[in-house]
């Protein structure tokens, strides 16, 4: 039975009070009812026996009701960090790249580390939306909207770094293949330019996919606002005006939903467009991070010049991206009412399993990279591993000054996800959150290790030089977290954070093959009807 009657939610809304879910008692074996082990039984994707109307109320409630005080506090903090980051970027552009800790030897450090870090985070959103869609994983419907939003905001943060790190900013127009008075065209043989196209395409396609997915849900918000507007002659107004908030909602959501009226003929074209977008986003994810890895793999620097980088980077991106999705959604589940019914323990467990798989792939890639570096007989490649990364100076005097970064990466990326072999850990939100945090830190260190440990001691000992970050390096990175969090909080406040139409579609009562009893309680495990 429903924990909360739908009318109670409406009443709570009218009273200006946020409905709070009554905690369902957790079953030792099945958690919130979704952690079923029997593969023959499909666990519920949404707990609490929710109807379509409940889903609409819950998800639209996040947009229409005032969030708790925590939202404003967090938004203020995020804004301050974003402002700080912006100030640092402006300072960099006015003064020059010397404000960072880069030098002749280590020409890339935090800037490119951060770029690859954020792009990698973005990839999980596309994987959840596109790849899980092609694999018909219905559990993706609760997390795909937020994950796609996260992708777009992460790519925005990522894209700032290649833009600002060029040194001579007044030449940045040269990356774009536009006819100009200097008769200059870009160098299409350079991976750095492939990056420009890859990241721009990735951003554009992700934004289109995200927007298209939101059209039906924006229409839902439009219709609710219109009905409220017509239902009573007065209601909440914008401050200092007479304009009703619902009128603004009806216009803005109405504009962006393009007049969507839920026609099945339209749904047919929509579904095909969705599938094609999912189908091309999958190779897009793989190609984009492979192209990013080419920034390193196509060079001659030992430690960079290795063919394992494309799959290594892609697996690492999915790994790090899922960690960020969990890092955002686990606290959101606690803070927003009823969200635990949409994002169940099974969703978290599935994502934990993906983290375990991709983490193991990444660990295997680390081992293979080292093995092939040794097996190749190339002294410089082997030396990068032994003396630039693995061996601390107290064990071997020729050892690596950045050894702590390498071992932090190993601990966070390879060792910490292994706890997910235990069912207790992978079904505990706190454990998953802790591992996700460690993985995010570890993935940043992975890119730092690749870039800085390879560069600071390259071929000629005479040119070796250490890298130390300046305050501007650090604060710029912190600032991008502020930008990311600001955008994400705005998204949760103003846009439908869950794919309502998709969630409704995977509820058991959405199946048209019920047996005419009029109650719509279809058997989710019914044998295939010939209409499939």
């Amino acid at each position, binding site marked *: 039975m429903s924990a909360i009657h739908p009318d109670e939610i409406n009443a709570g809304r009218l009273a200006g009070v946020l409905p709070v879910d009554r905690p369902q008692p957790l079953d030792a074996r099945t958690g919130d009812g979704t952690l079923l082990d029997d593969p023959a039984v499909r666990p519920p994707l949404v707990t609490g026996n929710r*109807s379509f*109307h409940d889903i*609409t109320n819950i998800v639209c409630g996040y947009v229409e009701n005032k969030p708790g005080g925590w939202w404003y506090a967090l938004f203020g903090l995020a804004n301050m960090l974003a402002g700080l980051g912006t100030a640092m970027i402006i300072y960099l552009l006015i003064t020059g790249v010397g404000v960072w800790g880069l030098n002749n030897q280590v020409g890339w450090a935090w800037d490119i580390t951060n770029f690859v870090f954020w792009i990698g985070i973005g990839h999980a959103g596309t994987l959840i939306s596109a790849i899980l869609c092609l694999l018909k994983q219905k559990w993706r419907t609760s997390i795909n909207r937020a994950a796609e939003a996260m992708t777009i905001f992460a790519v925005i943060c990522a894209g700032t770094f290649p833009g600002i790190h060029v040194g001579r900013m007044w030449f940045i127009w040269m990356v774009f293949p536009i006819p100009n008075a200097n*008769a200059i*065209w870009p*160098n*299409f*043989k*350079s991976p750095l*330019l*492939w990056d420009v*196209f890859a990241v721009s*395409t990735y951003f*554009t*396609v992700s934004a289109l*996919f995200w927007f*298209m997915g939101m059209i*039906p849900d924006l229409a*839902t918000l439009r*219709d*609710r606002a219109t*009905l409220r507007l*017509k239902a009573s002659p007065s209601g909440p107004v914008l401050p200092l005006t007479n304009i009703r908030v619902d009128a603004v909602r009806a216009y803005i959501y*109405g*504009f962006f939903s*393009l*007049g*969507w*009226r*839920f*026609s*099945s*003929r*339209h*749904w*047919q*074209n*929509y*579904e*095909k*467009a969705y*599938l*094609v977008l999912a189908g*091309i986003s999958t190779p*897009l994810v793989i*190609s984009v991070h492979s*192209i990013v890895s*080419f920034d390193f793999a196509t060079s001659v620097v030992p430690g960079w010049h290795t063919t394992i980088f494309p799959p290594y980077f892609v697996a690492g991106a999915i790994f790090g991206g899922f960690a960020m999705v969990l890092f955002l959604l686990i606290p959101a589940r606690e803070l927003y009412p009823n969200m635990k019914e949409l994002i169940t323990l099974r969703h978290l467990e599935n994502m934990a399993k993906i983290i375990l798989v991709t983490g193991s792939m990444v660990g295997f890639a680390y081992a293979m990279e080292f093995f092939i570096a040794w097996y190749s007989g190339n002294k410089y490649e082997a030396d990068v591993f032994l003396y630039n990364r693995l061996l601390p100076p107290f064990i071997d005097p020729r050892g690596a000054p950045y050894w702590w970064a390498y071992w932090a990466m190993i601990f966070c990326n390879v060792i910490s996800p292994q706890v997910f072999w235990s069912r207790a850990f992978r079904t505990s939100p706190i454990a998953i959150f802790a591992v996700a945090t460690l993985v995010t830190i570890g993935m940043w260190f992975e890119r730092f290790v690749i870039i800085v440990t390879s560069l600071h001691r390259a071929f000629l000992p005479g040119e070796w030089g250490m890298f130390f970050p300046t305050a501007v390096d650090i604060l710029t990175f912190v600032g991008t977290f502020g930008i990311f969090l600001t955008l994400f909080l705005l998204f949760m406040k103003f846009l439908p954070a869950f794919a309502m*139409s998709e969630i409704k*579609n995977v509820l058991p*009562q959405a*199946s*048209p*093959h*019920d047996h*005419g009893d*009029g*109650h*719509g309680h279809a058997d989710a495990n019914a044998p295939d009807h010939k*209409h499939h």
Partner: protein
Amino acid sequence: MAKQGKIYKTPSGEVVYGVMAEFATPGDTFRAAEKLRDAGYKNWDVYAPFPIHGIDEAMGLKPSKLPLLAGVIGLAGAAIGFFFQWWVSTYGYTTIVQGKPAGAWEAFVPVTFEIGVLFTAFTCILGMMAFNALPMWYHPLLKKDRFLRVSDDRFVICVESRDPGFDPEKARKMLESVKGYNIDLVQD
């Protein structure tokens, strides 16, 4: 829109767009759609908060042309991208890198792929909008409060008056016979 035969008016004098009925469950809607398809109706539609599984066949819809269009335009885009890179590297700003030929195709693969994906994606969204005649912010059905609940949890079938054999009474009887309720005329 051109109507064949009579023009029907509501009691208050507005032109009729069609007749709509609500249905209780996706199953009822599905079976009703099959009956309407078999009865030979051409201008009608099913409205649901999500795409009902199998409704395309139940309505007798032809498969969408969007994937074909997306594929063609995507490949065309890839070809354009490849040719553009080749022209830039050999004539526009001839670039010799590492002693390799100026027009070496291997280097052009990543950007060609990305441009192909970009064109495909634009075709998907713009094609979807074109095939669905969107944006269409004003529509007779969107003026009915009853219809606005489709986005929540209602299922509606609407038979449009531009169907050649349209007759409000026949349509009403048809919809009642397939378990429709709250049957209503929709003004244009």
